[in-house]
């Protein structure tokens, strides 16, 4: 296991444990807020108003409603990891299924077919249009909305996985052991199950790792436009958009306006996002390095 892969895997494991057990690590119960508090000191009573800067009371500071940011991040982490993992897994499986069927039907790789204006509309815009109607003050509830959002994000940007799986499948179909199986009378389902799928495992794992990074970026972009995983809560007096689940990438979009003052509110989710991104990227990069090394060994 190379250092990148080891580091990425270890960090992902640590994040998963934190996501599963936030109640053990969070300094405050979920939903707890303290907008005004006081302390008796030698100088007299000191009053503190939200948002508070990082201190021993609030390790990462509090937001303008008095919620402890560390607690919010720890509880929101599970939504981020679940969304990224589930969507990446579904994209990998769907993309692989299409890629394999394309290769088996001998459709051949898609050649450059010229200019396409639709390439000018990024996929997150398509996702935005499809999830906007049901995300703000969603009647679906956080969990159902979460699955709907993951399903919508799954169907876009599959081109890379389809192409790589199709190429690998075509390569395997041309190998001598497959030809031998075909000449012995093996049917397509048999070849797929015993000769193709076992060799695609590594390819699919790499695709999954790449997709986790892409999905994390997509979720972050949607958060900038106030569409949060699990739902956006709109209050009416005053009119404010907040994240229903506290999902981390969404918190960046939420606290983006905290550039001029109370910057800790932006730093905390930004740093958490970068840690998660580093974990997924390191894991993905490490897998690719391992595959390249194995290919060099096989070629030698």
């Amino acid at each position, binding site marked *: 296991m190379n250092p990148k892969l080891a580091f990425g895997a270890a960090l992902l494991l640590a994040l998963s444990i934190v996501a599963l057990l936030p109640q053990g690590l969070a300094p405050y119960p979920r939903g707890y807020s303290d907008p005004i508090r006081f302390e008796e000191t030698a100088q007299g009573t000191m009053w503190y108003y939200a948002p508070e800067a990082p201190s021993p009371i609030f390790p990462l500071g509090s937001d303008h409603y008095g919620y402890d940011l560390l607690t919010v991040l720890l509880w929101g982490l599970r939504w981020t990891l679940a969304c990224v993992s589930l969507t990446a897994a579904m994209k990998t499986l769907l993309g692989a299924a299409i890629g394999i069927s394309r290769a088996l039907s001998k459709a051949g790789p898609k050649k450059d*077919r*010229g200019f396409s204006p639709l390439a000018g509309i990024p996929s997150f815009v398509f996702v935005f249009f499809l999830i906007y109607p049901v995300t703000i003050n969603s009647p679906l509830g956080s969990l159902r909305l979460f699955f709907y959002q993951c399903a919508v994000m799954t169907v876009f940007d599959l081109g890379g996985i389809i192409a790589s799986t199709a190429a690998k499948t075509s390569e395997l179909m041309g190998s001598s052991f497959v030809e031998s199986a075909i000449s012995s009378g093996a049917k397509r389902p048999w070849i797929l199950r015993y000769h193709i799928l076992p060799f695609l495992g590594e390819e699919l794992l790499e695709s999954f790792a790449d997709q986790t990074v892409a999905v994390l970026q997509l979720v972050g972009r949607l958060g900038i436009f106030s569409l949060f995983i699990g739902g956006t809560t709109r209050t009416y007096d005053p009119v404010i958009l907040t994240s229903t689940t506290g999902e981390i990438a969404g918190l960046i979009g939420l606290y983006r306006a905290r550039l001029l003052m109370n910057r800790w509110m932006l730093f905390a989710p930004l740093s958490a996002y970068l840690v998660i991104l580093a974990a997924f990227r390191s894991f993905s990069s490490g897998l690719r390095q391992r595959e390249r090394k194995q290919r060099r060994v096989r070629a030698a």
Partner: protein
Amino acid sequence: MRKAILSLSRIFIAPLVVIALAASPLIVTGGEAGLSIQFRPAFEALALWFRGLSDGSSFRYLIGKTEWNLVQSTPRYFFVSLLYLLLPGSLGLSLGTALGLALVRAKSRLIGSALNFIFAIPEFIMALMLQLLALYVLDLTGIKLASISYDGRGHYLLLLPFALMTFYPFAYSFRLASRKAIDAADADYTAYARSKGLSERTIRLRHIGAAVLPSMRAELPTILAIMQANLFLCEFIFSLPGITRLLFTSAFPGRLPGWLEGYQYPLAVWVLLGVLALYSLAWLFYSLALSLTRRGLTGES
């Protein structure tokens, strides 16, 4: 011929997809029972839009309570978006290609690694980090490096979004050029040119450079797609008066209550059609620029 026909068909299909996409918020709604699909509101909006093309109502939109005319206001928005698509991209691609060709292997690998690291950071994170950097420098030194957003009084071209829009095409073209330069440096035609006594500079420009440009042309859809995505984020984060920002600040009312009644279908359609036009113009511009550059380098027609 087949490629040309397919391209033409895509040009005709794209506006139809855009019209359907803009209608999608009216089709999918959520209720206690779950998601429901209703096509009627979408068809009504579409019919109103077509009717509005003749009486002019499809060209009017609201920002807050103020009514605006698309024909009067959109050219400026479109111009700003086009400016951010063409200028930084041209600079990024030229610099990236030139540097990728000019640097020897060890240096290009070092810069390539640094660029890969920064390239891995999503553009919206980079935008926020640039804004934070400008603010920290201002707080610590009192020096204003750059404006963190457009304020309606200054020029459209701001340093931070310009730098961000330049960086990604620069990084992409640098990696492509240095990879191709390494391949071309060992090619037969390069060895032949060296044996004929041509200078390294001439070889890099006329032989290796000319070999890089077709690859750049082939990667143009990817480069432009990255730039278009960056444009959406840059215009929103830096409050630039571009056409894509209209989508999220006016077509979708966002913070305003009664969002469904506030959704402006005609504006969403025009913005998306504008984005298609932006991409098409940028594609034409860069294709022509690359073609003319290659012609200039090689002298071939």
